[in-house]
């Protein structure tokens, strides 16, 4: 087979149909990645227009451009759009597009999940923007503090739009996080050990792991607040044992890691682009990995620095203040690694480098003000003023937008296969850089002079008039700079010279393919023996195109790529990925209907889309057709490997495991909330505690344990080839879960006080609901397993279905035990 025939064959397997049908069904990571990037940029433009309106309003004292009600929507939507609809999706898009290419793979681990995440993002974002057009946009600030966002003070739909819309969008964040984690850990080119991965992959791996732990507290908080608004369960109402501070803890438990989640991918871009433009390798690879790990952990110990003024005792503030200062260290390690790299190389002032220099200047200043704000006494003055607005934009725009712009110019040739001269790009850089500093430097000063954030106007006497005017003028200069950037990119798409490959002579694998890239990325997979595979083997690209690597022979219409052992990079198995399908978009539409039902207050109706999602989810798993044993497959170079469904560490299993980690974090947050309220909130102890319930509790526990045993039996039987007993055991397992559900329901109805009475009762019911939901999931898993066995998808070799089912069932059982202890302890204690 020659290179062209191979190209055609692979393109037929990996491509999507033309036209809108192709748009709806494509699950290809390059397509989805590019869509994320473009949509995120559109949302950035919308958020930017809102920012311009904010600055127009603040340009003069006593301005009558907009009133407070509109202004509140403006900054709430500006902040929410920038954080949730721009920054996170932008890096998700870059990761989806770039990761497989850098790792020498052909797609992400769960292509349908990428597509589902994309549609959820698009629909959720649309709901938020639509609310703005209808004038019911959220207006409680991007952190939505209760009680202001509770029913009593925001009776309208505005807060619901935020809670439901953002949660809908979060689905895509969690999907992307799981996808990135598993792809980096498993889907790499053979030989790419963990310590040979491009740093960019390390950055994204750690970011994704952080997301898996950081987003669940916010999702949980949003659910609790929505339940309080809809059904009056008083989690945050102090008169009934709730506390507004609980919301702040849950929000910032997410919110602070969030800013590092935004910064790290951008830092990954720097670590990729900067050495190439300095014609050298990065200094201190191992140091940087260690710094990333430290950053990932420390960033979870900072959240209270957003709450220094809430009256928390000084010692607790001290813990978080010290941690907030320490987190500067891993960042300093990176900054000096980058500068040292520049010293070691021969840096050239090309356009991406210009943006990197802009990054250094702005980000260092933002880092300095960050350390200042971490000091409690100073923060007591600066908190909630424009000093903080200045700081946060110095780190977000300096730490995210500038590196991403550098990355944009660096990788544009990769997206388009063209290169262009720098003139317009340089002009836009200077406008953005100067405009930025003029805009935001002034805000440090207005903040210190006492200007609060989130005020729609200020009096002449305050003495901030000139500073604000200058700031507003600067913001328009910056806006023109961004417009110029957009024009430059548009020109690039149409009026630029064609290039075939690797214009920067970079060493990472994404340049080992033709640009723009074909749908399948690479015609065969390389063996990697170096962090920069292209550095020593410039001819690698042609050799791969000739099919000299792994999986160079297209067969059976399969989308094949390699999976490796995580640490060593040794060949593990071949993954056959699912192809184009309408399932993701349909599932996302039905998911959207669920959120719309909730938004409209149609709670009973919302059960319909829930049933739809369940049915679609089962179909999602069912359509993977595994009716045949395959055995070892030839993979080229005279080697063989098993197919993923017959291998131990298949991506599906790992994906489920990480999903459960996220799920467990949500439960941990709920338990934290319960304990927090018990210890801190006013109006405790509750008037009425759990009364009885020991019997149904024990029954539930026994039934769940039986369920776990049956799941094990089913797995063991099918491994021995006894498919009849395996099916029967699965059925018995499902029955056992049904028992759990009934027992739990009985416990709630007979023993728990009504959830509206007190936060104690609300928490107990929430825990109970959590376990009910998981018992239901376990039930579905067992039923599904039984059907798979019956339909011949399971054999002694093909037990993946059962192993995944067992994972969920064991999780459900283990969490049930925790929940029961928490529910029943107050009864035993009293």
């Amino acid at each position: 087979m020659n290179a062209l025939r191979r190209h055609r064959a692979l393109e037929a397997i990996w491509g999507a149909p033309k036209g809108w049908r192709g748009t709806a069904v494509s699950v290809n990571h390059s397509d989805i990645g590019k869509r994320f990037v473009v949509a995120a940029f559109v949302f950035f433009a919308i958020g930017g227009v809102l920012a311009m309106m904010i600055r127009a309003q603040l340009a003069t004292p006593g301005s009558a451009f907009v009133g407070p009600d509109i202004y509140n929507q403006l900054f709430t939507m500006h902040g929410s759009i920038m954080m949730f609809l721009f920054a996170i999706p932008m890096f998700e898009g870059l990761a989806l597009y770039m990761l497989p290419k850098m790792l020498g793979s052909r797609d992400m681990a769960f292509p349908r999940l990428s597509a589902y995440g994309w549609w959820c993002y698009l629909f959720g974002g649309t709901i938020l923007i639509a609310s703005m057009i209808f004038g019911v946009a959220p207006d409680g600030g991007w952190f939505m503090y209760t009680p202001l966002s509770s029913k009593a003070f925001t009776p309208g739909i505005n807060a619901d739009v935020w809670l439901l819309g953002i949660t809908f969008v979060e689905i895509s964040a969690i999907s992307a996080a799981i996808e990135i984690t598993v792809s980096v850990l498993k889907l790499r080119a053979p030989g790419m050990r963990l310590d040979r991965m491009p740093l960019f992959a390390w950055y994204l791996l750690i970011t994704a792991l952080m997301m898996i732990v950081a987003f669940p507290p916010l999702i949980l908080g949003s659910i609790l607040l929505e339940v309080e608004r809809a059904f009056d369960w008083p989690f945050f109402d102090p008169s009934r044992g709730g506390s507004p501070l609980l919301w702040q803890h849950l929000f910032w438990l997410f919110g602070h890691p969030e800013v590092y989640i935004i910064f790290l991918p951008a830092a990954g871009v720097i670590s990729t682009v900067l050495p190439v433009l300095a014609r050298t390798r990065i200094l201190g690879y191992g140091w940087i990995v260690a710094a990333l790990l430290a950053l990932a952990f420390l960033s979870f110990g900072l959240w209270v620095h957003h709450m220094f003024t809430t009256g928390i005792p000084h010692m607790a503030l001290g813990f978080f203040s010290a941690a907030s200062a320490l987190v500067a260290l891993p960042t300093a390690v990176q900054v000096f690694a980058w500068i040292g790299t520049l010293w070691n190389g021969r840096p050239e002032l090309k356009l991406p480098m210009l943006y990197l220099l802009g990054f250094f200047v702005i980000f260092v200043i933002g880092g300095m003000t960050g350390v200042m704000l971490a000091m409690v006494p100073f923060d007591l003055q600066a908190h909630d003023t424009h000093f903080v607005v200045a700081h946060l934009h110095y780190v977000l725009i300096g730490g995210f937008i500038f590196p991403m712009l550098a990355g944009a110019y660096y990788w544009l040739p990769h997206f388009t296969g063209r290169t262009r001269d720098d003139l317009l790009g340089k002009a836009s850089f200077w406008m953005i850089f100067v405009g930025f500093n003029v805009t935001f430097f002034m805000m440090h000063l207005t903040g210190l002079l006492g200007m609060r954030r989130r005020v729609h106007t200020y009096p002449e006497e305050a003495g901030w008039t000139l500073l604000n005017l200058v700031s507003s003028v600067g913001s328009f200069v910056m806006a023109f700079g961004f417009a110029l950037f957009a024009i430059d990119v548009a020109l690039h798409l149409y009026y630029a010279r064609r290039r075939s490959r690797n214009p920067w002579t970079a060493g990472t694998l994404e340049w080992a393919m033709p640009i723009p890239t074909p749908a399948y990325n690479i015609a065969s997979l390389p063996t990697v023996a170096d962090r920069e595979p292209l550095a020593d083997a410039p001819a690698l690209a042609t050799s791969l195109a000739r099919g000299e690597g792994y999986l160079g022979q297209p067969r059976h219409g399969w989308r094949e790529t390699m999976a490796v052992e995580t640490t060593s990079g040794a060949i593990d198995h071949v993954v056959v990925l699912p192809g184009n399908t309408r399932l993701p978009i349909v599932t996302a539409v039905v998911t959207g209907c669920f959120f719309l039902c909730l938004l409209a207050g149609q709670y009973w109706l919302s059960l319909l889309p829930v049933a739809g999602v369940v049915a679609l989810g089962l179909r999602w798993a069912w359509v993977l057709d595994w009716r045949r044993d395959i055995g070892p497959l030839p993979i080229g170079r005279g080697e063989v490997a098993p197919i993923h469904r017959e291998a131990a560490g298949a991506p599906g299993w790992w994906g489920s495991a990480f999903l459960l980690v996220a799920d467990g974090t949500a439960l941990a947050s709920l338990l934290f909330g319960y304990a927090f309220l018990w210890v801190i909130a006013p109006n405790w102890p509750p008037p009425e505690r759990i009364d009885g319930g020991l019997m149904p509790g024990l029954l539930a526990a026994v039934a769940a344990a039986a369920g776990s045993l049956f799941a094990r039996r089913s797995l063991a039987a099918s491994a021995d080839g006894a498919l009849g007993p395996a099916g029967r055991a699965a059925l018995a397992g499902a029955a056992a879960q049904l028992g759990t559900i009934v027992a739990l329901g009985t416990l709630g109805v007979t023993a728990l006080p009504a959830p509206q009475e007190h936060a104690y009762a609300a928490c107990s019911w929430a825990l109970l609901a959590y376990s009910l939901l998981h018992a239901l999931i376990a039930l579905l898993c067992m039923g599904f397993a039984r059907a798979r066995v019956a339909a011949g998808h399971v054999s002694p070799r093909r037990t993946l279905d059962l192993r995944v089912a067992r994972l969920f069932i064991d999780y459900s059982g283990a969490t049930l035990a925790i929940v029961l202890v928490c529910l029943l302890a107050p009864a035993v204690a009293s």
Partner: protein
Amino acid sequence: MTLLARVSAGLILWAFGFSLLYALQGAGCAYGWQEIQLFGAALLRWFLVVTWLLLVAAGLALLRLTRSASSDFERRVTLATVLAGAGAMLVTGSPVALTSACA
């Protein structure tokens, strides 16, 4: 996967210790351990300081992990993160000795 667990061990311990100190401080103030005096300081203070020092010591004990590392990369990253974890415990826990617990 074990590599990731080993290089994170020091930091996981920090996360645990940090949460523990914060929880002890909160519970101690809520349940009045601040009021009970013992050898010239509050019971809560003793409790916190001893816990803190034990956590730092435990963090340093993790240095043993570097001995069994299977590669140079793993050894160096483990060393750095264990030291980072123990150092962070020392610094972020220091308010237990320096500041007032419940006001």
